């Protein structure tokens, strides 16, 4: 009579749906079919919980086209806007602007992508599903791992789209595949680590609306006061100093180096710019070491509304 869910394994078919009026059937089935809890080791539990929540977020991405559109259209738009609109006006020493620009756009996109975690945590909190998760005997970090993994997937999709667009407007990678992959990994790892920062923010604000505004207050200075779109030497001194120590600048510098997009311009004589890959790796490690524990602690004490 009633169509069964297609994803269900062909299991012993229980008799026709018992109505509310059939109390016996309901209670019998409640007692009867539950298997004894399997014994799991802590690691497989942690892995299984993390994967279960990741899957939830992947389904969410699939079912909310707005998120996908944002993740796909925005990078295309940025690549085209910056390369075609500013490309002719901004002269970069020792390089063609499109080559210079792409690493900046990649970095900006992964950083922006991290805001999904913040917004999603705030929304989950508001809708009460965090209470459901917290009342289950699951691993406390699983919700956060699943969340940040979701960002990672979105960022990977964005990355592929951006690279295709970049190639179409003349961007080229001039290094070895190994260096190329290292660059991509660095970008995704940085975005992943930054997701934890935003997740903490998302759990700390009062409403999902606040997080969107807060995100922009953080993201714009971070991505624009950097070497992502213009060489940092052109900035007034205070901004230049900020830009040179900005982790996003190091990320951009590292990616330019790994993709072979540095050109012939001299590298600023600052440690962070001279050793960008190491700086970024340190930055990622510090972000994870600080924010993962903070997030897990925060998660253990939050509750809806």
């Amino acid at each position, binding site marked *: 009579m009633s169509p069964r869910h297609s994803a269900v394994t062909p299991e012993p078919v229980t008799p026709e749906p018992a109505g509310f009026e059939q*109390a016996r059937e*309901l*209670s019998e089935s409640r007692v009867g079919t*539950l*298997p004894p809890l399997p014994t799991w080791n802590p690691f497989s539990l942690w892995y299984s919980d993390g994967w279960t929540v990741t899957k939830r977020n992947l389904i969410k991405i699939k079912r909310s086209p707005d998120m996908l559109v944002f993740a796909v259209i925005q990078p295309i738009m940025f690549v085209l806007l910056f390369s075609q609109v500013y490309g002719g006006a901004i002269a970069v020493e020792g390089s063609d602007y499109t080559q210079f620009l792409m690493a900046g756009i990649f970095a900006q996109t992964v950083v922006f992508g991290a805001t999904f975690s913040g917004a999603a945590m705030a929304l989950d909190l508001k*809708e*009460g599903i965090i*209470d459901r998760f917290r009342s289950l005997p699951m691993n406390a970090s699983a919700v956060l791992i699943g969340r940040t993994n979701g960002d990672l997937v979105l960022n990977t999709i964005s990355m592929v789209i951006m690279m295709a667009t970049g190639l179409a407007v003349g961007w080229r990678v001039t290094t070895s595949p190994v260096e190329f992959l290292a660059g991509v990994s660095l970008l995704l790892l940085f975005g992943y680590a930054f997701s934890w920062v935003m997740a903490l923010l998302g759990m700390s604000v009062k409403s999902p609306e606040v997080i969107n505004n807060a995100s922009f207050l953080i993201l714009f200075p971070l991505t624009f006061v950097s070497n992502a779109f213009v060489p940092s030497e052109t900035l007034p001194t205070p901004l230049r100093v900020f830009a040179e120590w900005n982790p996003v600048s190091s990320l951009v510098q590292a990616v330019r180096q790994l993709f072979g997009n540095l050109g012939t311009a001299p590298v600023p004589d600052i440690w962070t710019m001279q050793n960008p890959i190491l700086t970024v790796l340190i930055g990622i490690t510090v972000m994870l070491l600080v924010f993962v524990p903070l997030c897990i602690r925060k998660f253990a004490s939050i509750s809806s*509304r």
Partner: protein
Amino acid sequence: MIIEAQGLTKTYQSKSGPVHALAGLDLQVPRGTVKALLGPNGAGKTTVVKMLTTLIRPDAGTAVIDGIDVIRHPKSVRRIIGVSGQYAAVDENLTGFENLEMVGRLYHLGGAAARRRAQELIDLFELTAAGNRPVKGFSGGMRRRIDLAGALVINPKVLFLDEPTTGLDPRSRIALWDVIKHLVADGTTVLLTTQYLEEADQLADDIVVIDDGRVIAEGTSDQLKAQIGGHRVVVALVDAADGGTAREILARHGSGEPSMSTDGRGVEVAVTDGPTALQNMLSDLRAAQVNLHDAGMRRPTLDDVFLKLTGHKADLDATDDDTDAGGPKLSKRAQAKRDQARATDADATDLEKVT
């Protein structure tokens, strides 16, 4: 006792000083019974549930569920409880089936068992329509049912239902009552919170009335009703001049002091034997030649319980029920009302406690 809580205390800091969400609340629930926490918004009902379900820690006090300390071993407690909250905690983007499967996996049933259980609950709760479509777009009643099914993915030793029917239309409410009644038929222990006396009456063996974070009365629904006088007779007079006579007649057959409406035309009294009292009153009123616009009986409401137990009205329009770092969002008016009420409560507590 499967639930044993003592001296639960929670204080939030707000701009106007500390607010006592719970002020030393004790609670005992015998195994296999249904207990209702009855109280207005802001009384602390949700805070109690959140403490017992490990979501928030009390500032002071102890709580033990099935012999497990809730504060020290929250994870062990989570393995034996099911929770369904005031706001259906379901993921809108997932289907009903996917929601239940996810919960099953997070209870660590394993994939196959989680899927089998999800399908079973879909069938039992008649959720077939919501089974394979995203929850977003389904009615509130349907969401609550999915949420309730989520609380039953394991066979919980204690089921917590926080205002299970608040915000539902009457039909969905009655349907959900049916579901809950059948669940408790086989002896699951249930702790439910509600603002509605009728709901507590329908579902619970025992009722605990709470206000301002403490227990103000406790007993079976009959005991409580006897205390507030069961049904109430209400008459509307044609002429306010008959007020005195009517009051006297109602007092004669009622079980308490009649109250008059402000315009002097409405008289109301609690009665123990409803229909007989009403008949007697009507014939006496006729003999005394008092003309009536209207006369009838009504069931006691939460307002009546509160008025009787605390001397103040239940603050049903106060904003949401407490919790979270932000603390309870009480209007200034509600706050003042509380402070004023607190003084009278202290006396009422000892006097009014039954059982």
